[in-house]
């Protein structure tokens, strides 16, 4: 197919749905007559909890606010709206959560439209079949998947490519709400259908998915605008306070990637070895030479987590120079004492101290081994198989540390400053990543989808 001559314009509302954007930026973006309004809504960055618990890491009212602008503009002007990784992690509970917000907004704004809801949940039996055939491949630094780990895992999702979104748009859906999706697919699906080069479309999507983070000054809470052409794409900021520069754009290509020249995604990789970034007047950057190279088999990334227990924490600090000097043996002593008591009481639980001022930030990677500060922050963390076990372990660790007698101690009334009452806070379920592997997919568009007509007008009658 030859590349279309006209440009394809994309308004990316914000870096993550719910992070917000200035209304003026969005209006200016609309004035530039986009063919697509999109937003990526998720990430694994906030950690395993959100996928496991089925909760969003973004606030409901903030997501609703962003959706209100996108939906009203999209439906009233006939511009498709695509949301990827709905609800933050893109599993069924996240997608359903986001759908409820869309429906609520449609009712309030009297919007009627056809919507596709695409799920990305991956059935365990299907993963197991591939596992037994040796077709589940761990990503870098990830241990091989075992059936035992698979059994314990919950909310396994596959990261969809452009295909299911293309299918939904081809069916005439004005709004696409996708589960876990490759971030650029949100922006690239429609132009690829229209015949634009997949390499350029996906690379533009890769930058637009983080919206104004790739501009300078960068922001996670502002819009970005892209113009896709036959052999290049141009990025610009609808906000006059920001601009795209060669460095800001190229720098973003590095962001959160292991290798800036080769960016793997569903069904292939973006090859940026021949890529050029050219500054244009008006704070714009033109990118050329991005290529998409498909792989023989179509591989998708699976993400899944397993529950590791429950957590309770206590925040505390010390200002005592002798205690600070003795901090390592003090904490080792407390830990041993707590471990013995928990064992005797048959409470399963594990405690850990996060010592700010020593290595609270870097842990094992911390090269500085001497403590120089006049105070230390100590977060007591307890994890157990039940919330009650975690509560008991945290409480015991806190009281033991508070009154622990160490060599040279002269402050005998208590070792800790506790800023809060209650001192201990329940953190709830703890999850850890358990699946982060590639799996081959015979039908890249075969993600289960529902097409619904949202009748906002009638519900408000």
């Amino acid at each position, binding site marked *: 197919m030859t590349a279309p001559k006209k440009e394809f314009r994309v308004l990316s509302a914000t870096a993550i749905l719910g992070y917000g954007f200035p209304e003026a930026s969005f209006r200016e973006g609309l004035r530039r007559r986009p063919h697509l309004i999109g937003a990526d809504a998720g990430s694994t960055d906030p950690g395993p909890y959100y996928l496991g618990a089925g909760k969003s890491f973004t606030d409901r009212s903030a997501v609703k606010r962003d959706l209100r602008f996108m939906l009203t503009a999209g439906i009233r002007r006939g511009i498709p709206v695509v949301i990827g990784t709905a609800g933050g992690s893109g599993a069924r509970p996240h997608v359903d959560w986001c759908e409820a917000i869309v429906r609520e907004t449609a009712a309030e704004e009297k919007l009627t439209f056809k919507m596709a809801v695409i799920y990305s949940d991956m059935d365990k039996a299907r993963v197991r079949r591939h596992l037994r055939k040796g077709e589940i491949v761990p990503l870098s630094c990830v241990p091989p998947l075992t059936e035992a780990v698979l059994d314990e895992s919950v909310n396994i999702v596959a990261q969809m490519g452009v295909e299911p979104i293309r299918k939904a748009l081809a069916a005439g859906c004005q709004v696409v709400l996708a589960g876990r999706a490759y971030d650029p697919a949100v922006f690239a699906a429609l132009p690829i259908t229209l015949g634009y080069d997949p390499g350029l479309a996906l690379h533009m999507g890769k930058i637009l998915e983080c919206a104004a983070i790739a501009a300078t000054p960068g922001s996670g809470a502002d819009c970005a605008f892209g113009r896709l052409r036959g052999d290049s794409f141009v990025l610009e900021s609808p906000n006059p306070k920001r601009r795209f520069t060669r460095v800001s754009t*190229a720098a973003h290509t590095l962001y959160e990637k292991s290798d800036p020249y080769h960016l793997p995604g569903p069904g292939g990789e973006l090859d940026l070895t021949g890529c050029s970034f050219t500054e244009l007047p008006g704070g714009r950057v033109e990118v050329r030479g991005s290529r998409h190279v498909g792989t023989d088999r179509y591989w998708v990334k699976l993400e899944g987590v397993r529950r590791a227990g429950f957590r309770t924490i206590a925040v505390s600090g010390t200002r005592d120079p002798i205690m600070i000097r003795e901090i390592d043996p003090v904490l080792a002593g407390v830990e041993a004492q707590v471990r013995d008591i928990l064992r005797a009481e048959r409470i399963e639980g594990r405690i850990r101290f996060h010592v700010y001022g020593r290595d609270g930030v870097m842990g094992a990677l911390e090269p500085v081994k001497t403590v120089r500060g006049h105070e230390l922050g100590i977060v007591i963390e307890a994890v157990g198989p039940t919330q009650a076990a975690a509560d008991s372990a945290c409480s015991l660790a806190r009281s033991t540390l508070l009154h622990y007698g160490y060599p040279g101690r002269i402050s005998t009334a208590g070792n800790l400053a506790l800023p809060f009452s209650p001192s201990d806070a329940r953190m709830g379920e703890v999850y850890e990543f358990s699946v982060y592997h590639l799996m081959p997919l015979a039908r890249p568009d075969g993600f289960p989808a529902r097409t619904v007509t949202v009748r906002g007008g009638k519900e408000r009658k």
Partner: protein
Amino acid sequence: MRRSILTAATVVRSKNSGPYELTLDILFKDRARFELFRRRGVVTRRRIAALYRRPAADILKIVYFEPSNALKITMRRPIPSGDAGETDIYGAQQHAPLLGLTY
């Protein structure tokens, strides 16, 4: 006299690259500083491993990216994001040892 990285770089940062890897970026002010730094061969797998107290095998990639005058170092996370013992879920505060580099 050796120069501090702080006089040559506009950005020194760390971030997750997925839950299992940590990636460190140094963006240089201009091509000349980028080229000089690269020529000096300051960053090696062994050097980064020593700075972060990891085995050299954990330093996965060292890539110079010319379009943004940048150096990218990718390493294995000591523990995956969110696992027991985690200190930095986003991996966004693991850059400080690089600030002591000279060239």
